[in-house]
């Protein structure tokens, strides 16, 4: 099976000897979120996750929760965000990150088709574990969406290859025991999950959750293929830094990863 656009972009970075940078942007947050996504791509993100706000995001910490609430209060909807993405040339492959009920409510087939129609390659559903993923994997497969699965520090060894076998795009190593958000120090588990995943898969192995600074990104990607940065970027959006300010932050991550 050939890699989809999301996976192809990450493999290209890896094959060139670089470290992958995936950045999370909350969809519908402010009038300029789409411009922010473009700025993120221009600043060197290999791919972008567009967060589709959900009312009850149990895997997200205070920063992304607050961004969710702001976007929802401003009228953000899954269809509105996907409509905005349709035909918008952001400059990097896209994945949507949302919660299972958003897909479930729309109907899994329709949801997968609507992602494809909007030009979104991948999808991350952090409350959908392996055992429950069957129907979604099937719908995603039919529509041609890359379903990106998470692998947690609590997973026993035998679970990791099972997750990697069905994940597409990359495998999302959860960097710590906890929800999304910036931490003062990188957890030892961030390095550990990458170290455990690398030998069991050829998929790009990226670590996310708790990666808030360029230094932490470098450290976390040393044993894997790269990182996902979310809350640090979303905080900049909430603070009103605008596309330019967010782009500067992303560029600092890119520079640090390139310098190693």
């Amino acid at each position, binding site marked *: 099976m050939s890699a989809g656009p999301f996976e192809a972009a990450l493999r290209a970075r890896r094959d060139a000897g670089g470290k992958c940078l995936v950045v999370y942007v909350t969809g519908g947050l402010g009038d300029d979120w789409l411009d922010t996504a473009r700025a993120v791509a221009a600043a060197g993100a290999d791919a972008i996750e567009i967060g589709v706000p*959900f*009312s*009850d*995001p*149990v*895997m997200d*910490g205070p920063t992304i*929760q607050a961004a969710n*609430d702001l976007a*929802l209060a401003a009228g953000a*909807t*899954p*269809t509105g965000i996907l409509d905005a993405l349709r035909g918008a040339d952001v400059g990097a492959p896209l994945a949507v990150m949302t919660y*299972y*009920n*958003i*897909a*479930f*409510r*729309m109907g899994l087939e329709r949801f997968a088709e609507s992602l494809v129609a909007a030009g979104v390659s991948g999808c991350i559903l*952090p*409350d*959908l*574990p*392996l*055992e*429950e993923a069957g129907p979604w994997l099937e719908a995603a497969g039919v529509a041609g969406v890359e379903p990106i*699965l*998470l*692998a*947690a*520090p*609590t*997973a*026993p060894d035998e*679970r990791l290859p099972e*997750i990697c076998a069905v994940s597409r795009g990359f495998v999302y190593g*959860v960097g710590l*025991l*906890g*929800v999304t958000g910036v931490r003062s120090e990188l957890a030892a588990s961030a390095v550990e999950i990458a170290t455990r995943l690398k030998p069991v898969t050829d998929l790009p192995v990226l670590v996310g959750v708790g990666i808030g600074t360029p230094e932490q990104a470098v450290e976390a990607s040393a044993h894997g293929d790269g990182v996902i940065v979310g809350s640090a970027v979303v905080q900049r959006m909430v603070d009103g830094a605008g596309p330019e300010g967010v782009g500067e932050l992303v560029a600092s991550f890119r520079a640090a990863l390139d310098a190693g």
Partner: protein
Amino acid sequence: MTESANAPLQDPSPDGRFGDFGGQFVPETLVPACQELEREFRAAWVDPSFRADLDHLLAEYAGRPSPLTECHNLSEEFGCRLFVKREDLNHTGSHKINNVLGQALLAKRMGKTRLVAETGAGQHGVATATAAALMDMECCVFMGEVDVARQELNVFRMRLLGAEVRTAMSGSRTLKDAVNEAMRDWVATVVESHYCLGSVNGPHPYPWMVRTFHEVLGREARDQSEAVLGAPPDVVVACVGGGSNAIGIFSGFADAPTELVGVEPAGGAAIGRGVPGVVHGSVSYLMQDEFGQVQEAESISAGLDYPGVGPEHAHLSASGRARYEPVTDAEVVEAFQLMSRAEGIIPALESAHALAWISRERASLAGKSVVMNLSGRGDKDVAQMMDILS
């Protein structure tokens, strides 16, 4: 007794389903913990020493069995024969203690040192804080900001019992958000913490495990009602938020020719107004908008102020074995006062929902025998009622 085609409540399928409802929709981090919990619960439940420990606590600490009281004055007023199962007389004032003692014992057995819980009205939080004090465990209870304000007394009780109470400030700042915060805490502390979930919602095995811990009240009510009536009652009624007290009493009568009625608050009627959705770990009826955003429930009762419902109730509704009816806040306030004056029993606002339905339906219940689960006592609600009634 008429021949009944009804069956006892079933165990869930291996993937945690009751019919089309249930499952285990949790972040990857929590999957091993849910799987371990299921294994440990299965092992404990067939272990005579675990069962003996639990039975001992239920009898000597919680005060079981609770009586079944015939309400002569209300029976006369309604024209039916009304009995109430007195879960209000349990230690800590509600049925919640049955489940909490079971889970706390199990958590101890699993080597956990900390209990995490959500609470709405505070009854489950108080019960969890109580069990943690008894068993020398750390305890952290999440409660929505709105509920902290309207259930001040229970917040103080939990702190008095040594628990930490954390205020959930997100979303509707009620029970739903307290569950979100408890799950987030559990994601971060899963190694040392057990999530002591308070109702029959959540991921598998919670809906089944919590029901099993509450089956004791259903068994007692069945025996007690048959001892008086010589047969099971015509109707069993209980309020439903997540649905733990209701599933407890339904479990005792599911195989009888008894009509089972769950009463939902009109502002939080997941079965009445919801469509299938996934939140807090399982597929069930859920109040949500066209995009799948969970809607905020609105009920006078903090314990029922929840937009979802346990998956087994969704199944019992879909299969037709039980029916679910809404009552308004105004009807509940009236029932709260009615039971206080007529029987000298101040019911919890949650339990008053069940009475409100009986009162409204008195014409159709005439001549019937009715068992209502009086799931909790109303002491916690008197301050709120003082405001409402003045």
